């Protein structure tokens, strides 16, 4: 029988409703962080930070590159499955026609016949910009060769603050004059022509280079040279609008639908994307791995890509384990749990249907010597002794779980010219030999034989994290074995840049990640004219090396080029401007529903090849992510057990 609500039982009713609301709230709780996806094929992935910009002229970091690459297609692209890396046509209809011709010009005060290279590119007929309000009627127009010229001109415009000018500077005929003119005015005059950029018709583009430069095709595969619609730049950079860097208008397989800073970025399939098909051939073993199951099917497969911005590795890892991220790397602290001693995936992960792929990043980590430093720069034996004292294998074991490759020279595996048999005589971690070289260097036992004082060297690092300090301490302990006193200089990244630009450091920890898979991208780091503020931070200068570099960069991948590269590598080993430390591999884990995944060390437009099986993912969620309320009831029960006796005692006291 229902009782009337009186002041005495009103409290009880309120408590009942409060408990009911709490129970309802808890039953609605789940750990699923996403809105329902329906029938759409959605990929869940993560970024460690926000893209800086989505203007293709400004993209220089890997995060911005990852997004911009899905939105902007260039004339060429890195092939997805083939190894070694190869460029293939994307917006271009086939490979370009190449022509080498000679022109008379003044060089070093002498009139010479200089070889020039002319590329003729033809554009595909079905390449269209995505639909966008910047176009008449909101309908994306067809891409023309003038859009590519406009994109390259933007790289030379100081007002754009482009980060990719270095790729074309001095290479395209007449671009330096255009740049100088633009610099003098503060902004470029786009009506001015560049001699080496011609558009005979809408579908043809002719680029003349100042010298043969085969790596130019890599340049034409980068987002920097992707066609840009001038009307999009003008529309979004107009007053009152957010800017072109936040409103990309590209030709790629995906387009931007939302970007909430430091939260999430969503791309969706571009309905007007041209006809492109999944590759029918791949590298050895790809067919067995199922990477050719979708051969010949129309791209892209995914309807949406959800990028969640997760700066810290822990949540990213946990979300992956719960199935809310489709792929992940392996945090260092989890490595032993995930990977066995035989470098296989542990059983617990295999049972969950997770797969492992070990790829190689095109990178090198090194310690640079400042060749302009009066102590280190002129003393080759001292640099070689320091290199011999350094233990890259131990570094690899302690900080990289033993997965890295001990670098013997500047070129990483996967790049033309990399020699797996190369043995650097100064990378053997031989302390006895190092001490002998210290005697030759004039520092027996680390003591300056002229002054009798202990040698003191400063070691610069560009990050103030505990991990960076710990690694620096390891590095310094290696050198201190030679009797040298090491001093650590911890910098913010800006301070570090300043010290390397001004050359005020002695030794500095550094690294380089390839922009494109050509040896020239690594070997330029020792080219004399690239001394600071350019990327030759060590300020290494060797006339023989410079002459070989100038020759090598104009050559195709021939035996002659290989011989030149070998000579250059030998010079860097003997000259020892760096201690070559390690090349790092990439370990990628993928869930069973993630299809067609293949690691690629160069950022590219690879998301279009991926496919997911949403049914398998939902099944995983049902199995792995069911809430467990037993513990909650236990805690509530415990709290009641603790509180009730006290209430009871107090109540009895009051009644007495």
């Amino acid at each position: 029988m229902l009782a009337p609500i009186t002041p005495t039982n009103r409290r009880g009713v309120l408590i009942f409703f409060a408990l009911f609301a709490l129970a309802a709230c808890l039953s609605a709780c789940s750990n699923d962080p996403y809105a329902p996806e329906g029938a759409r094929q959605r990929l869940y992935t993560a970024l460690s930070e926000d893209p800086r910009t989505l203007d293709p002229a400004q993209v220089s970091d890997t995060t911005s590159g990852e997004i911009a690459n899905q939105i902007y297609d260039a004339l060429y692209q890195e092939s997805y499955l083939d190894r070694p890396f190869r460029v293939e046509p994307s917006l271009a209809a086939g490979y370009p026609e190449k022509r080498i011709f000679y022109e008379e010009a003044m060089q070093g005060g002498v009139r010479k016949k200089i070889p020039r290279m002319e590329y003729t590119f033809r554009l595909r007929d079905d390449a269209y910009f995505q639909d966008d309000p910047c176009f008449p009627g909101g309908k994306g127009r067809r891409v023309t060769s003038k859009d590519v010229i406009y994109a390259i001109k933007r790289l030379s415009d100081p007002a754009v603050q482009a980060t990719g000018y270095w790729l074309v500077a001095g290479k395209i005929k007449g671009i330096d004059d255009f740049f100088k003119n633009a610099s003098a005015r503060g902004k470029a005059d786009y009506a001015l022509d560049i001699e080496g950029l011609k558009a005979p018709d809408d579908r043809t583009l002719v680029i003349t280079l100042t010298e043969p430069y085969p790596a130019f095709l890599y340049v034409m595969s980068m987002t920097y040279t992707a066609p840009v619609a001038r009307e999009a730049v003008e529309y979004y950079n107009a007053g009152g609008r957010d800017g072109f860097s936040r409103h990309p208008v590209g030709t790629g397989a995906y387009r931007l639908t939302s970007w909430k800073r430091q939260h999430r970025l969503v791309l969706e399939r571009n309905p007007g994307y041209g006809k492109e098909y999944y590759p029918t051939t791949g590298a050895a073993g790809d067919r067995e791995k199922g990477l050719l199951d979708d051969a010949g099917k129309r791209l892209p497969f995914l309807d949406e890509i959800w990028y969640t911005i997760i700066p810290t590795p822990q949540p990213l890892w946990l979300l992956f384990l719960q199935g809310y991220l489709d792929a992940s790397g392996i945090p260092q602290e989890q490595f032993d749990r995930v990977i066995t001693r035989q470098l296989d995936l542990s059983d617990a992960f295999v049972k969950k249907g997770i797969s492992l792929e070990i790829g190689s990043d095109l990178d090198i980590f090194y310690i640079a010597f400042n060749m302009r430093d009066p102590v280190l720069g002129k003393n080759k034996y001292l640099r070689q002794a320091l290199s011999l004292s350094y233990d890259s294998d131990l570094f690899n074991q302690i900080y990289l779980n033993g997965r890295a490759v001990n670098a013997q020279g500047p070129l990483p595996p996967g790049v033309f010219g990399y020699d797996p048999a190369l043995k650097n005589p100064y990378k053997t971690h031989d302390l006895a030999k190092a001490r002998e070289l210290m005697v030759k260097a004039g520092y027996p036992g680390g003591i300056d034989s002229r002054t009798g004082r202990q040698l003191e060297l400063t070691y610069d690092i560009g990050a103030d994290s505990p991990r960076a300090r710990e690694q620096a301490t390891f590095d310094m302990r290696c050198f201190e074995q030679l009797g040298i006193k090491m001093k650590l200089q911890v910098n913010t990244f800006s301070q570090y840049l300043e010290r390397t630009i001004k050359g005020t450091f002695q030794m500095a920890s550094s690294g380089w990640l390839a922009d494109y898979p050509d040896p020239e991208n690594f070997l330029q780091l020792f080219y004399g004219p690239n001394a600071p503020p350019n990327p030759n931070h060590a300020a290494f200068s060797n006339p023989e090396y410079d002459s070989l570099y100038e020759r090598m960069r104009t050559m195709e991948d021939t035996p002659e080029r290989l011989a030149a590269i070998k000579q250059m590598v030998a010079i860097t080993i003997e000259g020892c401007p760096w201690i070559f430390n390690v090349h790092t591999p990439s370990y990628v884990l993928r869930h069973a529903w993630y299809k067609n995944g293949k690691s690629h060390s160069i950022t590219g437009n690879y998301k279009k090849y991926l496919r997911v099986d949403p049914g398998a993912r939902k099944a995983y969620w049902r199995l792995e992510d069911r809430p467990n309320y037993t513990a909650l009831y236990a805690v509530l029960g415990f709290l009641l057990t603790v509180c009730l006796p006290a209430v009871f005692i107090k109540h009895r006291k009051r009644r007495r």
Partner: protein
Amino acid sequence: MGLYILRRVVLAVPTVLGVCLVTFLLFNVFASPEAIARKQLGKNPTAVQVKTWITAHGMDKPMFVNLERGRDGRLHPFDSRFWNHMRELVLFQFPESDYLHEKVGALLRVKIVPSLTLTVPAFLLSILIALPLALFIAYYRGTYLDRVALFVCVILMSIVILNYIILGQYLLAVVFKYFPIYGYEFGLGAWKFLLLPVILAVAAGLGGNLRFYRTVMLNEVRADYVRTAMAKGVSEERILFKHVLKNAMIPVLTVTVLSIPFLITGSLLLEMYFGIPGMGNMMLNAVNNHDYPVIRTLVYIYSLLYIAGSILTDISYTLVDPRVTFE
């Protein structure tokens, strides 16, 4: 009261200017314009590009006083980096973020909402839970429950917030799977992502709050008016909830009102670990990416909020205690 507030505001001006000066010196002494430009311009920028960037950001101007004649042939002594920095901050004409290429003011408007959705419920719940609990413990003073509560409070206070976050995230989101580990949704869907961080924020502050409020309550319980009320036969609940609570509000307000302006600034750690795209996250991101325009704007805003908090606290005294006046 108006005069008092005006006096406080005037006295705050040197403090704010001091903060502006210190931030200016910090960001202009430790990194040269060239290093900042090169950091923002990526790999291999040319000297011209660096120079253009520096000019576009006004970093080519003299540090404090501009003694060079301008294009119009006249002297513009205040067209210097320091005065431009001060003008931007004082007039709330915040610059553009070097990292996100967006006006800091626009970013702030977007970031305030997620921060408030986290901090306001956490703040209110902290008070709503800690105050009655403190009264409850005060009511049971001297019993084992009081002693156990004190012991638990000391334990709760001794644990740093990071441990609450990591353990809470692991237990409640990973092991028991009640809440999402990470993420946020704008709009009403946000509640799902806010429950766990709010619970952890309340739990992390509970020990300290409870102990503080309990001490305040017990000080009041020993007052003469409580003894009088008890002698008159007023029930213990009535004494506590009607009389003691009201009189204990001054020290409570001192702590709570001072923290109200900081609700806007968000919680750095909670936002970072739970992926709430608020002000705390923005600050962290700016520090990680050396985004000086954002850092200096946020430091300035924090200093303004601190001053606003202290003025608000003084005002709130008069509202709860008629004995306090602005005379």
